[in-house]
């Protein structure tokens, strides 16, 4: 399927989902659904760099927070509609991703991973000390109560995140089925051989970092409106870092479907656990699942499904 067709199918599915959610007409569905959709975007974005090229980003929270805080900044400075804020967040996060990549991508993957962690902390420290956006006290965002044609504001946010999820998944799909996807895979498999085969590894890695960072920033842009009160500890929260890594790894990093599966499964599981048990147990479960999958099933759920299918096909062949 060409990516254009994929985009249309995804749009259709999204429209269906929105229709069903509106029919149920329970605001909790929209609130919870927003979180799951947000994770779909974050997981897919992480996977473009981590899964496709093999460079692990521990600082997903930083890019997410950049998106969130650029919204806060403009809210105070010159309010703008959310779609515009999303584009601005994409530009800023993308640029920072590019800059960080340029500084560190010429080193080995392990150093890059550590540098992403460093970046997250540096950014958090800068934000905590920046009083215009609230610093450590936090910032309040007043949410409009409703939007024409769509209904309550949370319906609007849900719709926006749905659209972002469609965009993210389509980008991932398009990459996978293009020469760029091959290039990314060679970087993951053997960077030295990739260079020797003519793959411009630095350029491709920079593309991946920029794209990944931009998408994460876009996921963060509507967040202040969703949550109403933004503090650095929530924007740079631990759950974003763990989930951005756990969801693609558990779902399966080699395909666009992996982060989707991982985000839906883990996202809904977490909603359930947070409400019934506690949010700490939540993170514990994600951590345990991450370690378990990494040790036992490194290709994730999608990988397990594929290998079962392959074994089935082999058994069906006549001896």
């Amino acid at each position, binding site marked *: 399927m060409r990516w254009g067709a994929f985009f249309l199918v995804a749009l259709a599915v999204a429209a269906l989902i929105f229709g069903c959610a509106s029919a149920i007409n329970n605001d909790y569905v929209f609130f919870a659904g927003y979180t799951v959709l947000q994770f779909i975007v974050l997981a897919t974005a992480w996977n473009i760099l981590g899964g496709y090229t*093999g460079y*692990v980003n521990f600082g997903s929270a930083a890019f997410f927070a950049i998106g969130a805080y650029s919204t806060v900044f403009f809210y105070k400075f010159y309010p703008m509609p959310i779609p515009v804020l999303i584009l601005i967040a994409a530009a800023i996060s993308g640029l920072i991703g590019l800059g960080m990549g340029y*500084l560190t991508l010429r080193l080995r*993957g392990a150093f890059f991973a550590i540098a992403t962690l460093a970046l997250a902390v540096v950014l958090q*420290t800068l934000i905590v000390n920046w009083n215009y956006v609230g610093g450590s006290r936090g910032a309040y965002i007043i949410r409009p109560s409703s939007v024409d044609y769509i209904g309550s504001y949370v319906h609007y946010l849900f719709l926006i995140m749905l659209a972002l999820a469609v965009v993210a998944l389509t980008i991932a799909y398009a990459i996978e089925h293009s020469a760029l996807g091959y290039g990314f895979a060679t970087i993951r498999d053997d960077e030295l051989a990739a260079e020797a085969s003519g793959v411009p590894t630095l350029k491709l890695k920079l593309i991946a970092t920029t794209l990944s960072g931009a998408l994460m920033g876009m996921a963060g842009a509507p967040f202040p409106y969703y949550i109403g009160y933004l503090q650095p500890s929530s924007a740079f929260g631990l759950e974003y870092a763990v989930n951005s890594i756990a969801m693609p790894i558990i779902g399966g990093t080699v395909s666009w479907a992996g982060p989707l599966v991982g985000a839906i499964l883990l996202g809904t599981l977490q909603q359930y656990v947070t409400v019934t048990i506690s949010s*700490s147990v939540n993170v514990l479960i994600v*951590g*345990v699942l991450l370690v378990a999958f990494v040790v036992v099933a490194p290709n994730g759920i999608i990988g397990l499904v594929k290998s079962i299918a392959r074994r089935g096909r082999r058994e069906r062949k006549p001896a």
Partner: protein
Amino acid sequence: MQLFSPELVINALIAGLLLGGFYAAVTLGISISFGILDIVNIAHPGFIILGSYIAYILNAQFGIDPIVAALIALPAFYGLGAAIYQVYYVAFETRGREALSGLAFFFGLLFITEVLLILVFGVDYRYVQASYIDQSINIGFVNLPKRMLIPCMISILMFIVLQLFLSRTFMGRAIMAVAQDQLALRLMAASPTRIKRTAFAISIATASLAGAFLIIIQPVEPSVGREYIGRVFAICVLGGLGSLPGTVIAAMLLGVAESLTATFYGPSWAPAVSFGILLLTLAFRPAGILGR
């Protein structure tokens, strides 16, 4: 910004050096696992916090001095390190997929450790009681708090012991060799796996002591470990991977930098110092000061 006075600067410098000595102990484990064995054990700070809590329990329940408690717990940490390495080896080194999965593995361990501690102990700050914690030695205007001085001195001792171990004993030299040439080791009928496991176990054992130092110096709660991830890798990279003396020097430099920043600009900027140094080092001199 505070007024410059020589006493203030000197005290900040001394505090920085003492802090650096402590940071060196914290980083020692990473110098071994990352610097020598090339294993990115990003969960190391989690084990340090675990060490802090174990020191806390033994201190609160039985009144044992935290450093003594750490020594008691040392064998357990050693065993934990050996077990973790075994899992790591079977899951990753044999399968050849160490890059992405190894990092994710340790990252997962880091969070599991932190959350388990939250579930067991809660998020309140814990601290230990010992006679020397509130005492200071004063030489003129120079203030040497004992709670910083003692960990610093023991840390330097740890380094000397380990440096001697790595250069004088058979196992120590085997560890240095395994970093360079596994085939030669196999030909000598020494098992590289066993040697690496020993080294990794030692690196986790150091976390026991480092944890005790931490809770002597400051109150601890489970998420404190996260601040140290950047610090330890900054020191490790700045000092040059695999160089123990380099680690000590880099730790001192970082300690001084943070101390001066905290004194003159305020403590909320301190985390940015270490992570900023890390980014700059990676960008411009990844081999570090004394690197191989």
